[in-house]
């Protein structure tokens, strides 16, 4: 008999009694942002299973789809002002938007277990500020922590310049927090050494081929995914990673007859189900999407299946510059290009993508071939990271061009959009100071700092990390980890006693001896960033512990209500940023609560996609607080940009919506940018872009598996969110399903390696290409990468740096001309350029307006991506020096080794020759991203996470192989 008696109440569900407190919120996790309700009441009471006895007015048992059933994972006990309360957190059964009727994912469905409860696995939440003394974290006060940080920040800014002060932060964890943190970085410190969680930079659009075409990457609404006749999905299965967009919008539409074409190297459940209902699965080799999309576009225009009416009306009919790489001179030029371009040939697409000619043809036909009566099918295009994080610029340009010629982009059910990963939680508090960033690539505008290389090169002296694992999240991260270790906890100078002056002095000495001081702010201990590396660890609060806001993947803004205490002395991120900023003497941080931050941020971002300035003006006019207005709107919220028209607040369903009718603006700030009805270019028409293979092909050839190797690609799955900090690590129900990292491997690939499901395998590669250097003042850096040394750099002692470095002969308003600089290949007549576009076109006068002429006026630009946003107007000679082959020649590439372990799952869901693993689980042995090459897109400087290769070998049997209690090896795509 157990001596641990189980409470009787645990054998029954705790029902919320009548008249309990109810809070609205949305799920903390994926882009979908489902609406939830929190029912809260003091411990000791329980409702009854009869209509008069519970908050749902329900008679139990309740029927299917009732939205009133509560499982054990939907209940928790939390503190409210120090008193124990029950909470039941369930999807809002009454909602008419997003998760209609209370549908939910497994992630959100168990979100009650996210709440801090010291009697649960959440007990290790960070509760107090800590500092590392003799290698061990010890508690200090907030005052002391902030004092130390301010003291050493002032020291490094003064001595080494603002760019020695760095911040690495989440881009999505609520507007109030991101606004305060970026305001600190950009208006306070004014540093260019700043990057977001998922890339080494953080400036410019994530899907640049799409934005250069003039399309906002979250222009669609969820309903659009159910309104098409044919839906083309690339690089994601919404079933696995944005569950309710699939369940509530795509799935019902498929059952009504919508056909779905999916491009993936894995046949996951959503893909298999789409195929079963008459859709088409294109089983692609990683990284080859451009070739597939170009070939499909060629088939379409060769057959005259393009949507001519749309093209004539909505496509720009000329390019901004002659000889530019990407922008077509109208549809005719695009047609000529795509029908003659080598890398739009069907044979090449078949060879590289591994997809049959019949299927490629069929896909083109399904999307674009007019019906017999001459009418067109409505086609929509959605994509995500498999597409844009393998070949960023070209893939996003190619899918957008394909969508545009099919008539998609600006009408209900005819959209081109990202599906999304995390929710949209960035609300900038300043402009990225690109004038302080040292790089200016040939012919190209300023580049933001690559923070990984910046740190590795020893340029950062102080780094503040907020809410990200950083290291494992980055590609080829082993070098970064080793370097950060050497700079911080492995450095000679370590505080040896809990004394503020001693700590400050030691940190200064470390900075003066090529070291770095690191602060990490998070909600949990995170391996290794704050468990092994950070000097100061700050406890943050999170979802449900503060009133916060952000938007989901259809720009829907909701209030995420506070309903319980945050543990210990933990504080919201915005408050920590404000405390530090005030200690530094910066103004503009005197917020009393998160609503004040929210209202302030509105005016700074009034032309943003997620603009809500009208909401704030409306609230003020009516004597309300903006957060309270949002609270009234509950789980429905309002879709941004928010407009105040004819006296009412109106949401915007989709962007570039040619069918949109607006009213008369009421507020002071009219929200009526041209891109609400037109495309986001100066003309309002979209650009067709020519997606070339040359700027990527050399890298792909290098990265493709050698003999014995497999592709090692990564992604998300349904059961886990991000790095698994909530679920995979601390939710027993999920942990038993996924106790460890895993690798999906095709049965034939497994058999030759003697691998069975449940075996422990080692995945390794010793030829991982990584980009290094580039930030010195060497002649090569100056010439090839246009590096302008910063005054801020301590190792530079020239007086007038800019004058000395910039050779005026080679500088135009467009940037630095590559001719005569660096590698002589750059100026040679370039046969690649000729291959890409063999037809000589007459020269035209350049617009006087320099580059980016088709990009909208500055007021519409995102403060963070301002001036860093477009490749329109680039020439091949501008792009080429940054291609893999050229960088190799110039000595910017090194090869590294890395490995990770996983439990094998043998399944034919994954393509032969390809293996798949979760993208980032700090609890596993080794980082899966460490095998991905760190060579950024030459145009967008975005990472190529999805491309890695490795040898896979069995190293033993996992404990799960013969267990019936943990981990399942069953096929995940049974439909």
């Amino acid at each position, binding site marked *: *008999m*157990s001596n*641990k*008696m*189980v409470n*009787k109440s*645990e*054998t*029954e*569900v705790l*029902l919320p009694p009548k008249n309990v407190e109810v809070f609205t919120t949305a799920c903390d996790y994926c882009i979908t942002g489902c609406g939830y309700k929190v029912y809260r009441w003091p411990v000791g009471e329980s409702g009854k*299973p009869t209509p008069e006895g519970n908050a749902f007015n329900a008679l*139990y*048992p*309740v*029927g*299917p*789809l*009732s*939205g009133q*059933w*509560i*499982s*054990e*994972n*939907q209940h928790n006990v939390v503190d409210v002002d120090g008193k124990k309360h029950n909470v039941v957190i369930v999807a809002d059964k009454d909602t008419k938007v997003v998760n209609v009727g*209370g*549908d*939910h*994912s*497994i992630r959100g*469905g*168990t979100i009650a277990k996210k709440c801090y409860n010291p009697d649960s696995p959440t007990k290790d939440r960070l509760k107090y500020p800590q500092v590392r003394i003799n290698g061990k974290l010890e508690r200090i006060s907030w005052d002391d922590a902030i004092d130390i940080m301010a003291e050493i920040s002032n020291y490094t800014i003064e001595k080494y310049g603002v760019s020695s002060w760095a911040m690495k932060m989440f881009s999505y964890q609520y507007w109030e927090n991101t606004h305060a943190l970026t305001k600190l970085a950009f208006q306070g410190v004014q540093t260019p050494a700043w990057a977001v969680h998922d890339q080494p930079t953080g400036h410019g659009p994530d899907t640049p081929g799409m934005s250069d075409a003039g399309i906002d990457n979250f222009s669609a609404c969820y309903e659009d995914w159910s309104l098409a006749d044919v839906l083309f999905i690339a690089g994601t299965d919404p*079933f696995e990673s944005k*569950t309710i967009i699939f*369940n509530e919008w795509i*799935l019902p539409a498929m059952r009504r007859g919508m056909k779905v074409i999916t491009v993936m190297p894995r046949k996951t*459940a*959503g893909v298999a*189900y789409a195929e079963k209902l008459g859709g088409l699965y294109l089983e692609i080799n990683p990284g080859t999407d451009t070739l597939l999309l170009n070939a499909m576009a060629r088939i379409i225009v060769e057959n005259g299946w393009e949507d001519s009416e749309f093209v004539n009306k909505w496509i720009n009919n000329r390019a901004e510059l002659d000889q530019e790489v990407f922008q077509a001179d109208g549809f005719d030029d695009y047609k000529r290009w795509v029908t003659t371009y080598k890398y739009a040939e069907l044979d090449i697409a078949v060879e590289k993508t591994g997809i049959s000619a019949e299927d490629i043809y069929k896909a083109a036909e399904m999307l674009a071939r007019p019906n017999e009566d001459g009418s067109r099918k409505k086609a929509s295009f959605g994509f995500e990271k498999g597409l844009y994080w393998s070949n960023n610029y070209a893939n996003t340009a190619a899918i957008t061009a394909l969508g545009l010629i099919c008539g998609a982009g600006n009408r209900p059910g005819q959209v081109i959009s990202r599906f999304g990963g995390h929710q949209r939680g960035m609300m900038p508090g300043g402009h990225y100071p690109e004038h302080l960033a040292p790089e200016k690539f040939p012919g190209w505008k300023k580049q933001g700092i690559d923070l990984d290389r910046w740190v590795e090169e020893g340029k950062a002296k102080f780094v503040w990390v907020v809410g990200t694992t950083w290291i494992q999240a980055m590609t080829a991260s082993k070098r970064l980890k080793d370097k950060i270790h050497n700079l911080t906890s492995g450095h000679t100078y370590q505080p040896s006693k809990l004394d503020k002056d001693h700590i400050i002095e030691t940190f200064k000495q470390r900075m003066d001896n090529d070291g770095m001081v690191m602060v990490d702010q998070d909600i949990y201990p995170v391996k290794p960033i704050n468990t092994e590396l950070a000097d100061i660890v700050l406890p943050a609060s999170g979802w449900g512990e503060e009133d916060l806001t952000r938007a989901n993947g259809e720009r829907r803004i909701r209030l995420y209500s506070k309903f319980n205490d945050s543990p210990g002395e933990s504080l919201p991120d915005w408050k920590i940023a404000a405390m530090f900023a005030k200690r530094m003497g910066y103004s503009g941080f005197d917020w009393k609560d998160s609503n004040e931050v929210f209202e302030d941020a509105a005016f700074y971002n009034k032309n943003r996609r997620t603009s809500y300035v009208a909401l704030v003006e409306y609230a003020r006019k009516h004597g309300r607080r903006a957060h309270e207005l949002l609270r009234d709107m509950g789980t429905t919220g309002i879709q941004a940009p928010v407009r105040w028209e004819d006296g009412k607040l109106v949401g915007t369903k989709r962007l570039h919506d040619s069918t949109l009718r607006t009213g008369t603006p009421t507020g002071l700030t009219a929200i009526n940018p041209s891109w609400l009805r037109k495309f986001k270019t100066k003309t309002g028409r979209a650009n067709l872009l020519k997606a070339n293979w040359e700027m990527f092909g050399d890298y792909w050839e290098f990265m493709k598996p050698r003999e014995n190797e497999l592709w090692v690609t990564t992604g998300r799955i*349904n*059961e886990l969110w991000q790095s698994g900090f909530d679920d995979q690590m601390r939710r*027993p*129900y999920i*942990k*038993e*399903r996924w106790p460890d990292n895993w690798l999906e491997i095709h049965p034939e690939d497994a058999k030759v390696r003697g691998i069975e499901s449940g075996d422990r395998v080692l995945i390794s590669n010793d030829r991982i290409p990584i980009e290094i250097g580039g930030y010195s003042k060497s002649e090569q850096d100056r010439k090839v990468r246009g590096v302008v040394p910063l005054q801020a750099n301590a190792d530079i002692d020239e007086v007038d740096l800019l004058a000395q470095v910039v050779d005026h002969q080679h500088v135009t308003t467009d940037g630095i001309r590559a001719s005569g600089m660096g590698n002589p290949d750059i100026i040679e007549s370039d046969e690649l350029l000729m291959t890409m576009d063999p037809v000589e076109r007459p020269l035209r006068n350049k617009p006087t307006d320099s580059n980016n002429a088709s990009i909208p006026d500055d007021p519409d630009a995102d403060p963070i991506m301002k001036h860093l946003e477009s490749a329109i107007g680039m020439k091949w000679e501008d792009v080429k020096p940054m291609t893999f082959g050229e960088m190799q020649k110039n000595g910017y590439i090194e090869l590294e080794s890395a490995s990770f372990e996983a439990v094998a799952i043998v399944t034919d869901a994954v393509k032969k020759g390809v293996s798949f693993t979760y993208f980032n689980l700090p609890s596993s042995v080794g980082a899966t991203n460490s095998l991905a090459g760190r060579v950024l897109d030459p145009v967008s400087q975005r990472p190529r996470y999805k491309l890695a290769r490795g040898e896979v070998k069995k190293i033993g049997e996992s404990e799960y192989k013969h*267990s*019936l*209690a*943990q981990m*399942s090896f*069953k*096929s*995940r*795509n*049974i*439909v």
Partner: protein
Amino acid sequence: MDECNLDKNEHLNNSAPCVSRRNFLLAGASTFVLSTMPGMAHAFKLIVKEHSPLRVASLSQLTEGNPVEFMFPLDNPMSSFTLVKLGERGAGGVGKDQDIVAFSNLCTHMGGPLNGSYKAKHKVLGPCPLHLTTFDLTRHGMVVSGHATQTLPQARLEIMGDDVYITGVMGLIYGQAGLI
């Protein structure tokens, strides 16, 4: 109210003291809470509410991969179960090969009916016709893929001679506010 600890492996061998056939059939009307089983028990307490045993199948007529359905404890669709001889050992399975298991037919996502969805090749129940969730019947009804917020409730089975009895249910059945 009765309670016992149960070692995982013992349980898998179906020889744990608390849930041995004798104990099950002889214990009075009570609720068993099997609270500290490694793995599973962390996730959901193995809650067994005991009922008078109901005969649900005969061993000699069960064939591998061919499920039978029954209602328990009430004669309504909210009490529907699938019983199947998996053909391989299943957690909590009974019979000579410990491969006879039974699970609730109500998906623990939103209550979709799993009746008739058994996939003999995979030993999986599902996909749920509503939103495609699947459950691994060899592993206590663990979610294979999908959205359910708890494992599929599993029947406690007992064998006497040629008769298969259900004696209780582990876990909360969809729709219920407490154990049935």
